[in-house]
């Protein structure tokens, strides 16, 4: 039984993918919109049935007329509900990388092309909160949806549900959109101790300066974007000189190579621990590099570098595993 259901579901997804292929920006047309009576709509029919029975039993022509009117309203509402989705364009704007276990933010745009008002459109993933859109005064709206990111790597959410029950709530028009949108998920940082050998620089550049624990002041260098704020020499800046940054000898000379072998545990745990140390080292202004499988990132620091290293951690696939 379960097997059959799975097959059916797979078939459904294949069919859906053909009918509504993933795109960066999707305009809703009749090809993509489904419509069916909502739960209140079914109750509405029960009420109509009771009224019809009353009309027949009392041979009451005006009750007949009222039942026919409400039935006609229902039929016309099919078009109105449909029109409340039709013509909308949904676009994926951007995402912000997150660590596993956090909520990933997806920024989306919903826009209309004409001047027709749109009401009560709910947009969301099954697992996310739904966002209610009303387009009356403005022709587009930017909004964010949040989804919990559980696994590192590129996280591609499932199909996005766009639905409406406007104007009468008797019908539900909906569509499952595959927006071409993904978010980068870094491993979840896992605090741990870093073994001593990591500090030995094995780089080709030579000129190793031994690690000392001193915080000795070394030199002032002109400020560059990305330098830690706490190292800025505020005193000289206050005197009217240009913005300068204090360089500390002990940090400057440290170059650390991070590798999987430094840590124990499963692959994911090791990656998590690596991630923790990337953040720690960056915070402490230490230059660090990464050797991970075939990937080799020379030691450096700064936001760009950190992003590069974290991305490598996020997408790492060990040899031997598929895909």
């Amino acid at each position: 039984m379960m097997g059959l259901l799975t097959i059916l579901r797979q078939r459904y997804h294949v069919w859906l993918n053909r009918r509504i292929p993933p795109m960066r920006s999707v305009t809703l047309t009749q090809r993509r919109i489904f419509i069916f009576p909502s739960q209140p709509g079914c109750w509405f029919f029960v009420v109509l049935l009771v009224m019809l029975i009353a009309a027949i039993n009392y041979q009451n022509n005006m009750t007949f007329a009222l039942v026919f009117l409400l039935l006609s309203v229902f039929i016309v509402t099919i078009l109105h509900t449909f029109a409340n989705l039709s013509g909308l364009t949904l676009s994926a704007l951007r995402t912000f990388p997150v660590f596993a276990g956090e909520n990933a933010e997806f920024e989306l745009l919903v826009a209309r092309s004409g001047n027709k008002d749109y009401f009560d459109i709910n947009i969301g993933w099954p697992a996310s909160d739904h966002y209610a859109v009303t387009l009356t005064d403005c022709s587009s709206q930017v909004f964010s949806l949040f989804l919990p990111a559980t696994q590192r790597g590129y996280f591609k959410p499932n199909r996005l549900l766009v639905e409406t029950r406007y104007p009468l709530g008797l019908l539900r028009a909906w569509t499952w959109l595959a927006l071409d949108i993904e978010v980068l998920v870094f491993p979840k940082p896992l605090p741990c101790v870093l073994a001593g050998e990591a500090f030995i620089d094995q780089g080709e550049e030579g000129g190793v300066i031994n690690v000392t624990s001193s915080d000795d002041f070394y030199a002032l260098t002109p400020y560059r974007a990305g330098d830690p704020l706490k190292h800025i020499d505020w005193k000289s800046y206050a005197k009217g000189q240009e913005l300068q940054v204090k360089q500390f000898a002990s940090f400057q000379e440290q170059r650390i190579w991070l590798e999987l072998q430094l840590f124990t545990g499963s692959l994911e745990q090791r990656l998590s621990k690596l991630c923790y140390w990337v953040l720690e080292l960056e915070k402490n202004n230490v230059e660090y590099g990464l050797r991970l499988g075939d990937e080799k990132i020379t030691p450096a620091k700064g936001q760009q570098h950190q992003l590069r290293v974290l991305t490598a951690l996020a997408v790492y696939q060990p040899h031997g595993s598929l895909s």
Partner: protein
Amino acid sequence: MTVSWQVPRNCLAWLLLSQFMLIMPHAERLPWWLMVAYISCALWRIMVYQGKWSFPPKSVKVGLALLCLLGIWRSFGSEGYKSMLGLEPTVALLFSGFCLKLLEVNSRRDAYVIIFLAYFVAITEFLFSQDFYITVTVFFTVLLISAALVALHQHGYDQFSIISFKKAGIIFAQALPLMLLLFIVVPRFEPLWKVPYPSHQAKTGVGDTLSPGDISNLSQSDALAFRVVFEGDVPERRSMYWRGLVFSDFDGSEWARGRLNKLLMSTEQVAQVLKQQKNPLRYTIIQEASYRPWLFTLALAYSSDPAVRLSTDFRLINKDDIHSRIRYQVISTPSAKLETLLSASVRAVETKLPAIGNEQARSFAKKIYSQSSGTEGFIQKILNMFNQDNYFYTLNPPLLGDNAVDDFLFNTRRGFCGHYASSFVYLMRAAGIPARVVAGYQGGEINPITGTVLVHQFDAHSWAEVWLEGEGWRRVDPTAAVAPERIEFGLEDAMSAEGSFLADTPMSPLRYRDVKWLNSIRLQLDALSYYWSSSVLQYRGDKQLDVLTSILGKVSPWRMASLVLLVGALVLFYVAFDLLRGRSKLRLATEVRLYLKMCKRLGRAGYPRLPHEGAIAYSQRLTAAKPAWGRHLLQATHAFVTLSYEPLAENERQAMLKVLRDEAAKVSHLL
């Protein structure tokens, strides 16, 4: 999310409005305390919304529900209503649920429940009346309910807003053609089971028994009793005696239907009546609800309607009490003889009088009868007596003593038709002549617009029937002897001296029939009501078949389905077109529209904007060439650029728009 859900304010406003509209037409039949309960619940709900009060605790709600149940039991459990399952108690129950639910709407589901309940409550009004105005009111109320339903799905309106009503109105307008189509095509089935009808404590019209004063009470009502549509010419007013009830039993003060008046005719007797119909009057009667089974027809009537029965005293009776307007066809032959042979047992019943009482009248009758030449002469003598001996026809007769007949004939001499008919029959019987009292209506008013005869309650009348050898039952109306104008012209003329016509209902438009324009309006409204009833409310069965045949040529399921599909598709295509058209129409900002308009004017005047030219370059080029109006063009362009590219507060924006508008107007003026 577990944030407590709130009904949108706009939705609540429309809901309260539609509830009020629903309850108003029911006001006359709902107990007063229910109205008070509804208003208090509505006020409480408003206070809750303003944040001044909180929702009532559960105990209060349960208490209120119990109170309502108790109230309904007290109001309807007593006499007059057959059971608590009658229509009125059910409606009262629905309304109590309706107003209590107001205090409990705290989820979207509850809102749906109360709105669907409102739809259902709307039809209850139709079970009591389907008048044109009631129908318009109810359909408008349904529109209001739908506006509430729309408002439930429109967020962002903190206050009452007409926008929901507009949307609902558009949907209704589009649904209307489909409704008409369904109304015309869908066949009306026979009732599935028997249902309770309005119990209506006050049954109207002529009653089961007749005491002399009864008819005068009826005469105070201007309600329509029934309406007659003659196929040929309308007979003379004085010959229109609408028989409804025959009373053969007299107990000294009150006439009642006897055993013989309750018998139905056998098949042979019915066939006999049909055989007597030679060159009959053909007419249709539209009887208003009377909550009684009596039908009113001209003498010797026959109807082939399956719901109509004939009684042995030549009356038509409906199968059931008449709860709603019914319509049936009748043929009548006024010249036909009624019961030429009278069996001994029937003769005994029709001459029977109470053993004692009214002795004076009894001996008076015997004395006069002995002085007269046969039955004919006796009847004439009595009628002459009414005509000449100071008898008065009045709506306000004095009260009569124990021997009512004696008291009236020899003492008060003032009475209404019941008094005359009753005492006349008494005198006949006292002389041994078979006679009986007949009650019904006399006369009627012709509406010249529709050509139908309107018979009102104040046309109620009673007269006598006397059996004569060889002739059968002959109609004798003693009232005609006292007040011939009653028979010739109607009650209003007969009472003109006394001024008592519809004295209790000063607002009745029937009192002002001599005011020409008022009367014309009244007759036109009546015509509307007639056409509404005959062509819309009675649209079923043969009538429906006729209409369908005239549209389709031949009525078959195929043709009906094709009609529904064709018209339905046309309407829906139009609606779809209308809805989807607005999708791609771009709405330009006001300033862009104004600027482009100005550019178009300039282009037509010979100064087109070059394709590569920006707004500022364009204006500078033209200003150099035509300084006369260039200054205004510069200002307009400046305003346009400011509006387009600078963030402005609303009032600044409006001021800028005004500048743009004014300057553009000056440019086109100077061109």
